[in-house]
């Protein structure tokens, strides 16, 4: 992929990664996913630096559902496949951000689906993530 093309395209797409227009945001994320698949080496650093933070915000928003959520999941899948090393980092960022927000501003099912997608795309981290998450599960004795 020609570098100057990416240099112009990425900032343009980035401006659509917000909750103002969910449908266009979904299109933009799908395009990022496509770019990450087509030319991972040149796209990944840009996406990590420019877009990833915004996508964390979108992924835990209750406004994101249906096709928009599918695009978010496709984005994470492509991101992790472009560079496996980011997988653990994504999981911790996703889970760290969510609980700090006021209730109603965050959709925990969305976060869970995103984490699941990351693990699915890079299964080496599965054992670690399961161990980490299962700490929070409590067993209530039957009465």
């Amino acid at each position: 992929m020609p570098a100057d093309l990416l240099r112009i395209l990425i900032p343009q797409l980035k401006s659509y990664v917000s909750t103002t227009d969910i449908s266009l945001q979904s299109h933009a994320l799908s395009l990022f996913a496509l770019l990450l698949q087509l030319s991972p080496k040149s796209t990944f650093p840009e996406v990590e630096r420019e877009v990833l933070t915004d996508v964390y915000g979108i992924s835990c928003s209750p406004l994101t559902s249906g096709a928009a959520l599918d695009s978010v999941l496709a984005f994470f899948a492509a991101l992790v496949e472009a560079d496996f090393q980011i997988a653990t980092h994504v999981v911790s960022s996703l889970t760290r951000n969510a609980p700090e927000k006021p209730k109603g501003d965050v959709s925990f099912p969305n976060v869970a689906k995103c984490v699941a997608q990351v693990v699915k795309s890079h299964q080496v981290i599965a054992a670690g993530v399961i161990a980490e998450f299962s700490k929070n599960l409590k067993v209530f004795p039957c009465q």
Partner: protein
Amino acid sequence: MRLEVWATYVTLLTQTRLYGAGSQSRDSVGVKRKRTPDGSDSEETAYSLLQSQVPALAKALLNQLKSPRTPSGTLQAGFGLLHTLLQVLPGSLSGQTGLIVSISKTILSQPPSTSNSTLHISCLQFTSSFFASHPPPTFANSLPVLTPVLVKNLGEKHPRVASEAFKAFSALLGTLKPVKSQDWVELVYQEAIARLGNHVTDAEVRSCAEDIIGDLWINASDTVQAKDGQEWEHVCRATGRTEGAVKVVTRVAREADVTEQWVNGCVDWATKLLTKNGRTGKAEVFECLSVLLSRCVLCIVQL
């Protein structure tokens, strides 16, 4: 009187189109068909009835139209009827090609005026569906007669006439695919360029000219690939309505043989469209970009 009979026939054809297939499908669900002793299916559907009528009907109709003194209103009704017939039974007029071509030629050779432009349009619309629904061998011999008058209509001032002429060539290109070494391709290309390059071109004509550029790239690639690509400078413009252009670029990127340079140019253009205000057509631009980007990589892999 005659016109009323034709109008009734058009209504009947429209009904057949809607419900004609219904009786066929009802047949297949259980009702036991009567069979003639030799085992063939005796039950007649609306379609098969109509099919058997077409040769006689078309012959009678065309004989009434062929006189040069036929009033314009009658001709127009006649072409309306033929057009509807093709919508119901595509390809059913192959036996009448000779007569159809000579009548169309007579009509289309007259310069369109305010009084007969509607007839021109009906005739061109019929020609489009005739091209689209018949196999090329049916009309291949008539093309040398028909294409010069069609090319002349491309240059008409009347926007609807010019648009319909472009559409007729779109249909022709689609049927003949791939089109090789036909002299009219060059003429159509030149006229499309002239229309696209002129900023006063009517919006409808412009959109048809954009479509024809796409059709040329997809169906007559040998001719257009040898050119300098000037048409894309006109199609991919920065101002004005770009919805049609986005569609054409998407279609060409998906179906035609394109160069890396073309893809890069179009990605650049589509990216600029994203910066424009308003959300109309944005989803299509995204779709276009995603096709272009996939294509981009293919081009590089091929090198």
